Every structure is written in C-alpha cells, then in structure tokens.
C-alpha cells in the first residue's frame, strides 16, 4: 500500500509496527541507504510546512528522520550518534516533534491533534529503542513521572474507538457495535414478559385479519345483496359487518392495554437498571457527562427504547402482515388490477423517503434555531440586572430579534416543503385509486370477469395496502433512532462501576485512623497534573490543616481518601492497607465529610441528619444536633425536627446548613473526618457556634481540614501548605509563622485584607 490520499493516515497508523516499518521502507526507498535498518516507524498527517500530507517519522540504524513523500523527498534528520533527546510540543490545532543534538534542535515533523496521542506513544517507544541502541550513545531518556501520567491520561481521554479509530460520542463505538446485537440486547428486556408479548402479537395479527375481512364483506354486500335487490340478506350482511367492526374494536382495545402494560413494565425495569448502575459509577463519569444528559438518558432514552420495543416492533409486524396479506388478496381478486396498483408504488415510496429526509433536516434546522433563540433568553433574563445596569437593553433586543427572524425563516421553509410534498403524496396515492376506477370500471362494463363488488372491495384493499407500505419505507429511521437511544442507555450500563468484585478485599472493622500518602500523583486530565509527589503521614486522631491557593490540590488530596478518585501513581494507605484493597463500603463507613456547600436532600431535618445512619434513634439525632449547635435553631422551626427542608422545603442559611452537615458527621461517628472550608461566609456569631461544634466533632478523629481562612486552623495539630500540587511547608501555626515563609505571608495578607475591609 503506497502513501496516497485515499488511505486514511490515522487508520494506517494503527497497523502493527512490523507492517508500518515495511511500508516506510518502501515509501522512503530513495532516501534510506540499502544497509539502513528501520527500527521504528510512525505516521503523521502534516508536513513540516503545515500542509495536510502523510509524513513518515522513522528511526533507523543510522538516524532519526522525517519525510513527506508527497513534497518531493525533503528530509529532516538527526544522526543517531548525536541525538540527545526527543521533544513533543502541543499547540492549538497541531504539535511539533523535534530531536535535539548537542549543538542544535531539528524540527522533525508536525502533526494535527488527531495524532497527538499516537505521536506521544511513538516517542515513548522510540525512546525505549534508542536507549537500547549502542550507536545512540548521547541519548538520555527522560524519566519524567508527570510526563508519563500525562501520556496515560491522554490515551484514556481520547474519544476515538481503540478498535477502529473512529470518533465515538460516548464510551461505546457504534461502528464496532453490531446493530443486531444491540437490538437483541434491547429485546432481552422483553424476555421476562414473553407470554404478554406473544398475546399482544396474536392480538395484533387478529387486528390485521379482521380489517382484511371488511372489504371482502363489502364486496359481497354489493354483488350479492345490492345488485340482487335482496332485502332479507341485507340485514344479515349489515349485522355481520357491524360485528366484525365490533370485534376489531374489542381486539384493538385489549391489545392497547396489553401493549401499554408491557411497555411500561419494560421501561420500568430498564430505568431501574440504569439508575442502580449509575449509583455505583465512578466520579469521573459524572465529571465528564452533564447532569442533564444523564437524567435524559434515564427518562428520554429509555422512553424511546420503550417506543421501539412496543410500538415500532409491533407496527413493523403489522405492516408486514398487511402488505403481504393484502397483496395476495389483491392478486386473487384480479391480477391485472393488482399490477396496475403496484405501478405508482415506487414513486410513492421514493417520494415518501425523500420527503421524510428533507423534513428531518428542516426540523433539525428549526430545532437548532430555536435552541439559539432560547440561549439568548437564557442569557438575558437571568442576567437582566447586568443588562439594565449597563443599559444594554437595545442590544439584547436586537440579538433576540435576529434569532427570532432566523427561526421564522426556518418555519417558513418547513411550511414550503410540507406544502409541496404532502399534496404530492396524496395526489400520487389518489392517482392509484383513479387508475383503478378507470381500468376497473372498464373491466366491469366490458364484462371482463370483474364484478362491481370486486371493484369496491379492491378499492378498500388499496388503502390497506398503501398505508403500511408508506410506514415501512420510513422504518430504517425508526431503527436508527432506537439504536441511538439503546447505545446511550447501554453506555451507562457498560461503564465499569467503581467497585470491582475482588475476593482479596479487606473489610474494615476497627480503624485506628492512620493515613499515609506515599509519593502520590494525580491528574484529572492530561494537560494539568494536580498532585505531584505528595508524601505525608497522619497519626490517628491528628487534625491536619490544608492551606494553599485555589487549585493547589487541597480538595483533590482530601477526595482521594473516600476514593472519589483514585491516585494516578503512588498510593494512599489507611492503617497500612492500600485504599484500593479495602472494600469500598467499609472504607466509606469510616469517613465523615462536611463540605464547603453542604448538600441537603429533600426530606425532614431529622432524615437529613440521619442520612448516613438511617436507623439512628430519635434521641441520638437530637444529641448530635445539640453537639453541632444546631438544636436551638431547629427548635425555632414550626415543625422542629420534622420540618421539611431541601429543594421544595424550608430555605436554610449557609451557617444552618453547615451545622446540619456537622450534626450529620457527628451522628455517623466516623474515625476519619474531612472538613472542606467548613466556616466561610457566615457572621462572627455563627462562626463561633460552628467553630465550637467542629471542636467537638474533631475529637479523637483523624481530621483533614481544608480552609482558606487561616485563623480557623489555629487548633490544627499540623498545617500543610500546598502549592501547585506539592507540600511546600508544614508545621504548627506557630512554627510556620516563625518560619516566615509562604504561610506567614498568607496570614499577613489575609489580616491586611480584613483590616482594610474594616477601615473602609
């Protein structure tokens, strides 16, 4: 395979190294010396000049070189004996790979971000090769831990399918996912309800058959009764017709019920399965997917799956039954007429498809413009105070009208298409009817073996034939929609939960509360390491304060303890056990958390205090509230401990929420406590109350307290000062002040700020 524009360089870069090397050898035949061995080959998608062109990056036994075959045979190279190191730099939209020698740096190749991960990986592998090459005596491999973590993270973050290299919108690649398998998996949810499903299918076929009987009876009515002027049989026929209609109505009514039951039942199972799974997913998942999107998966996507399982699958079956059944009947009545009927069919099917595609686009256009218009609303209405104070009302009005106009335009487009296509479809279908009247009428009048009744029945059947046909033509879209929804639902179900069932897990019982960080590194995403080599040991019962500017890694350091996140490298231990070896439930039972912005659930005060210990006694709850200095304000509420709080209940002040959170932690009685900025934004009186509550709370617990207000850490046994993911100072308040370093500077700054505020 030669380098050409047709072969996607990205897909090619995924070939096994041996094949790549062989290809490079072939493509670069004019450049490589005959004795030059290719040790490693990689591909990039950009030339050094910044054009899109396949470029080889090759490590040979003599040199490291890059060349873009499309752009003649220019070569960037550094002899192997001179290479000291390889550098990769990432920029907006591209990156540069360079090789350094003693007296120069040579830019080897550029690559678009699509290749960023691949190039990083290739560099790591080339470095490994270089290290083993005796010729590359000057090469020094950089064992940079942060760099390695970054590489690993970049790989993990890549949203390309590891299998086929295509972009995936979720964690499941729809291309590698077999659709049949997907649908089968969806149908798996029907399995427990096979009896009901079978009953509803039988009813459905019954519906089909009953509706097919009606035209036949009508034909009989015309030929045998009306044409024969037989009043006696007229009554019988009319009653029979009425009965079939009644039966049809009955069957369809019952079917509607069975189908609805089945559908609701399945959607219930699916919703629960998704929610149950969701509860045990890792924090990373919730960081990467918006809350709204997750909620939509539980409600909307399961709903559209239900629609597919129940409605569409049955519709499909009914339509197939009708098309074939009626088709056979049509031919049995009169094959000449039947052929005539089929004549406009391709036109109808084609037009229907065209129309639905076109409309799909137009509606999507409308949807997008509406979203754009809404975003103007969402900006300007909550921000109305800013708009007014900057006197920008006219600008907001212009912005809105612009979007509103666009939406209007799209709606008019939609009306135009509807106006064109719908009448055309109706006309095409009616044309079929007219043809039958014409040709059928001719056959009747010329006595060519067709009766008036046959003709009437035929016309009835015609409708029963065209409608399901139109439905079938749009069916691929329905399957498409369903598989997208299924994909989204299964994405959640396929995301690995945080607890891996391992037999060797330690279940904690009595905990001393000794915590140790051992060369801990952590990064949320590849570009920024958050923790870089944390080493610290906390004694049982010790209160350790964490201070540092925002983004210095304090909260992250604390979040590692309940394993909301796992370390990227190194380990955190509790009483000597690696946290990852401890059974998660038993670990978290030992940890109490009081957060910056305490979250209260919808429910009573008592339920909120007892959130971690649902079976706590009433008196324990009151004692906990007492200890947290929360009891007094709770008793001021009209319903006391039974007062409804949370989203739809009583609004609490920040200080009240914090004391409830403290009460919650006291009641849980954990060995380890995490306080995140427990005293912020409250008045001095409340702060005193909170401070008191905290003093009671931290007694005999290993406590990690994160604070911006340094004065709140006076009681801490030890304070760790963090900066850019490292511990830069540690000691007691007094020791740190005496040290006159970062901490002392921070304290000075804070007291200045507060005295300035008092002065003004």
């Amino acid at each position, binding site marked *: 395979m030669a380098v050409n524009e047709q072969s*996607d360089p990205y897909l090619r870069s995924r070939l096994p190294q041996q094949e790549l090397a062989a290809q490079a050898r072939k493509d670069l035949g004019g450049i490589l010396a005959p004795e030059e061995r290719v040790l490693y080959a990689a591909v990039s998608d950009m030339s050094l000049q*910044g054009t*899109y062109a396949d470029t080889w990056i090759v490590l040979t036994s003599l040199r490291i070189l890059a060349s873009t075959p499309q752009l003649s045979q220019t070569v960037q190279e550094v002899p192997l004996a001179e290479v000291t190191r390889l550098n990769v730099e990432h920029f907006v*939209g591209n990156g540069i790979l360079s090789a350094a020698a003693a007296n120069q740096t040579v830019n080897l190749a550029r690559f*678009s971000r*699509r290749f960023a991960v691949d190039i990083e990986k290739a560099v790591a592998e080339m470095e490994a090769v270089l290290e083993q090459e005796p010729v590359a005596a000057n090469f020094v491999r950089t064992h940079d831990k942060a760099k390695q973590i970054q590489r690993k993270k970049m790989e993990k973050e890549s949203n*390309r399918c590891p299998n086929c290299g295509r972009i995936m*919108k979720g964690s499941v690649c729809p291309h590698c996912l077999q659709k049949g398998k997907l649908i089968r998996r969806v149908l798996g949810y029907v399995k427990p309800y096979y009896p009901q499903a079978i009953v509803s299918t039988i009813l459905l076929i019954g519906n089909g058959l009953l509706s097919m009987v009606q035209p036949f009876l009508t034909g009989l009515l015309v030929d045998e009764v009306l044409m024969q002027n037989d009043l006696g049989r007229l009554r019988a026929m009319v009653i029979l017709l009425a009965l079939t209609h009644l039966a049809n109505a009955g069957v369809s009514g019952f079917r509607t019920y069975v189908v609805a039951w089945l559908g609701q039942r399945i959607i219930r199972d699916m919703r629960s399965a998704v929610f149950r799974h969701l509860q045990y997913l890792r924090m990373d998942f919730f960081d990467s997917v918006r809350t709204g999107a997750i909620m939509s998966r539980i409600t909307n996507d399961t709903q559209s799956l239900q629609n597919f399982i129940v409605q569409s699958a049955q519709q499909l079956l009914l339509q197939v039954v009708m098309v074939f059944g009626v088709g056979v009947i049509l031919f049995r009545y009169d094959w000449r007429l039947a052929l005539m009927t089929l004549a406009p069919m391709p036109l109808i099917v084609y037009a229907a498809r065209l129309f639905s595609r076109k409309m799909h686009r137009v509606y999507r256009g409308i949807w*997008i413009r509406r979203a754009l218009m809404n975003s103007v609303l969402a900006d300007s209405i909550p921000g109305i105070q800013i708009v007014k104070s900057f006197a920008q009302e006219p600008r907001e009005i212009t912005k809105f009208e612009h979007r509103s106009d666009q939406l209007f335009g799209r709606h008019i487009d939609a009306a135009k298409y509807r106006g064109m296509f719908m009448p055309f479809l109706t006309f095409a279908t009616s044309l079929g009817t007219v043809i039958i009247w014409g040709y059928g009428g001719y056959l009747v009048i010329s006595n060519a073996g067709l009766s008036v009744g046959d003709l009437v029945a035929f016309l009835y059947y015609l409708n029963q034939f065209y409608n399901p046909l139109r439905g079938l033509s749009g069916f691929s879209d329905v399957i498409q929609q369903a598989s997208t929804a299924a*994909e989204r639902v299964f994405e959640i179900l396929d995301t690995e939960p945080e607890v891996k069932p391992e037999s060797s897990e330690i279940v904690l019982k009595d905990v001393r509360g000794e915590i140790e960080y051992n060369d801990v590194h952590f990064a949320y995403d590849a570009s920024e390491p958050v923790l870089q080599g944390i080493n610290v040991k906390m004694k049982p019962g010790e209160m350790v304060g964490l201070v540092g500017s925002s983004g210095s890694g304090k909260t992250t350091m604390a979040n590692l303890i309940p394993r909301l996140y796992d370390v990227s490298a190194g380990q955190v231990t509790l009483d000597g056990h690696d946290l990852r070896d401890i059974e998660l439930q038993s670990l978290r039972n030992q940890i109490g958390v009081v957060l910056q912005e305490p979250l209260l659930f919808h429910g009573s005060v008592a339920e909120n205090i007892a959130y971690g210990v649902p079976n706590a006694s009433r008196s324990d709850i009151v004692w906990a509230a007492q200890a947290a200095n929360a009891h007094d304000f709770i008793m001021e509420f009209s319903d006391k401990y039974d007062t409804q709080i949370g989203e739809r209940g009583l609004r609490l002040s920040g200080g009240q929420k914090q004391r409830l959170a403290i009460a919650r932690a006291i009641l849980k009685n954990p060995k380890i406590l995490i306080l995140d900025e427990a005293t912020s934004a409250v008045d001095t009186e409340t702060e005193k109350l909170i401070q008191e509550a905290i003093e009671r709370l931290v007694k005999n617990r290993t406590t990690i307290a994160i604070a911006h207000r340094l004065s709140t850490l006076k009681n801490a046994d030890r304070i760790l000062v963090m900066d850019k993911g490292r511990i830069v100072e540690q000691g007691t308040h007094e020791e740190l002040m005496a040290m006159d370093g970062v901490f002392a500077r921070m304290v000075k700054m804070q007291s200045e700020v507060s005295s300035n505020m008092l002065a003004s």
Partner: protein
Amino acid sequence: MSPKTYAPEQVRFWRDSWQQLFLENGSGPEGPIKVKRAFPLTEPDRFIVITDIEGEFIGMLDTCRGLDPDSFRVLEEELEHEYFLPQITKINSIKDEYRVMNWSVETDRGPRTFEVTNRRQDIRWLSDDHVVIQDADGNKYEIKELSQLDSDSQQLLEVEA
C-alpha cells in the same frame, strides 16, 4: 521587570539553532521567549503577547506591521505553530453518522476530513459570515467569509450545521 509595549520598528525577532525564540529591543537580547496571539480569531495580526519560557508576561507587540522582513517571517512562523488555523475553502460534504458529523473539506492546507461531535459548542459563529469549527480532536478550522464560499458549501453549512 514591568510589562512593556514593543514598537514593531524597533524590535527584532530571531531563532537560535535550538529553535528557541529571542527578541532584541535596543537593550540587548531577551529570551528565550514565547509568543501568543491575544485575539487569534478577531485580530490575528495584532496584540502579540510576549512571555518568558514559563509563560510569565513580558510585554506586548501591538502590531506585526512594520517589523523587518526577517523578524516578520520568524514571528509569523512561530505564531502559525502556536495557533494552527487552516482556512476552509470548500465544503465537500457533511454526513451525520451516529450523532457524529463527518466533514470533508478543502482547506488552504490541503484536503481534510474531520469529525464534529457537538454542534452547539463546536461550531462557533463569530458573526453571520465568520465561522470557526473545532473537531473532535481539538483541531480548529476557520471560514473567514462564508459568503465568499461557493453556494453548495454555504448551503451545506446552513442546512447541516
């Protein structure tokens, strides 16, 4: 060192053999430095921010116009590395597959295919004529004047995006 404003007539840029960027402003060489556009989309040729290698602000060059040709070339090259933004000259097709838009375009840097995953976030309209598209890997592409593209391209963008 307090931040300064550099006058294009007085400042000189060059690179050493280690590909490091330096500048000279009448008072001896400064560097190695880094350069970045402050307004890469709306004012790409003006307000060039100059920092040291750690990213600490040193100063700003208000405009590239007036630099000597060598400095101009070096600076342009650096900026082009730092913010690679190909211009889309024609849209061949935009196809939707599993909620991912597959674009096939012609750019001033050659033909390119890329994927866009989020219409609302990744297709940014700076005005009704100026569009910046970000692909799933984080690469960016620009259409400075949509009205100058052929009508097929315009319609594709209008309808699909």
